[in-house]
């Protein structure tokens, strides 16, 4: 079932992801078939108080596909990793939940999205948030360093999902949770590798 991709295919996929998300970094509006920004956050029932605490600019950058925070409670003092944090909205929500004793770390492979995340961070007063340019397949964190790992609309884009899952498991503490909101294919999976790569974004 797992697609075996050559390095050049992975590179092509990464380039097309970069092409799309460079534009999304300025504004996600019009790039997705579902609501983004404040409308997205409201439709997905994000905690209104926590969203209210964020600036309009930050809220406008949201383009998640679900609300991973509905899956398990995140407690004060915990360490949370946001894989594919994009502009950082989920990272900020996590940061507000873990409080000053905890930490929220966002990672992404798109420099433009991280730039937006850091800009967004300056519009908050969070002292417990960091962002890093790194891929899900090679997490620069020690084993068992996070209580929770979240990811929103990202895993569907990752070429080597097996590796990303193994890394997520590694950095999680025992009994820690992985909470993912993502797109799953309900239609037919194309047998042809080339066709699958062409239709990577759906």
């Amino acid at each position, binding site marked *: 079932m797992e697609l075996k991709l050559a390095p050049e295919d992975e590179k092509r996929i990464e380039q097309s992801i970069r092409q799309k998300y460079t534009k999304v970094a300025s504004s996600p509006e019009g790039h997705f*078939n579902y609501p983004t920004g404040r409308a997205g956050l409201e439709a997905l029932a994000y905690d209104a108080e926590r969203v209210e605490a964020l600036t309009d600019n930050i809220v406008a950058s949201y383009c998640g596909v679900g609300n991973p925070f509905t899956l398990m409670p995140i407690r004060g003092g915990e360490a949370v990793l946001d894989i594919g944090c994009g502009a950082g909205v989920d990272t900020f929500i996590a940061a507000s939940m873990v409080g000053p004793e905890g930490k929220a770390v966002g990672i992404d492979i798109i420099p433009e999205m991280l730039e937006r995340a850091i800009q967004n961070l300056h519009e908050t007063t969070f002292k417990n948030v960091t962002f890093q340019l790194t891929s899900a397949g090679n997490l620069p964190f020690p084993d068992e360093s996070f209580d929770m790992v979240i990811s929103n609309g990202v895993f*569907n884009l990752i070429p080597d999902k*097996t590796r990303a899952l193994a890394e997520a498991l590694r950095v999680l503490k025992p009994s820690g949770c992985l909470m993912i909101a993502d797109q799953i294919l309900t239609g037919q999976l194309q047998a042809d590798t080339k066709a699958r790569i062409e239709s990577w974004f759906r």
Partner: protein
Amino acid sequence: MFKQAGFVDIELVADTGFNSSPVTKGALFRATKPVISIVKEKEKVMEDSLSKYKEFFDQTYAEGTLDRKTKHLIALGASLAAGCEA
């Protein structure tokens, strides 16, 4: 995929209602990293003890003033004299 990675309590909890295309749908997944079970903990303790024993055994029979063959012959003689059936 989650199970192969080593996760447990894997659950597709709900649809998100945000579908990126006619052939995809948004879904929420939760999976947990297992806590090492008591059995595995005991296995680990046994493994540690065995490795210490192996270290002791290897050191005892290492080449030294007496060569390994001589040491083994001494051990054989001692065990025969003691009536050790192992």
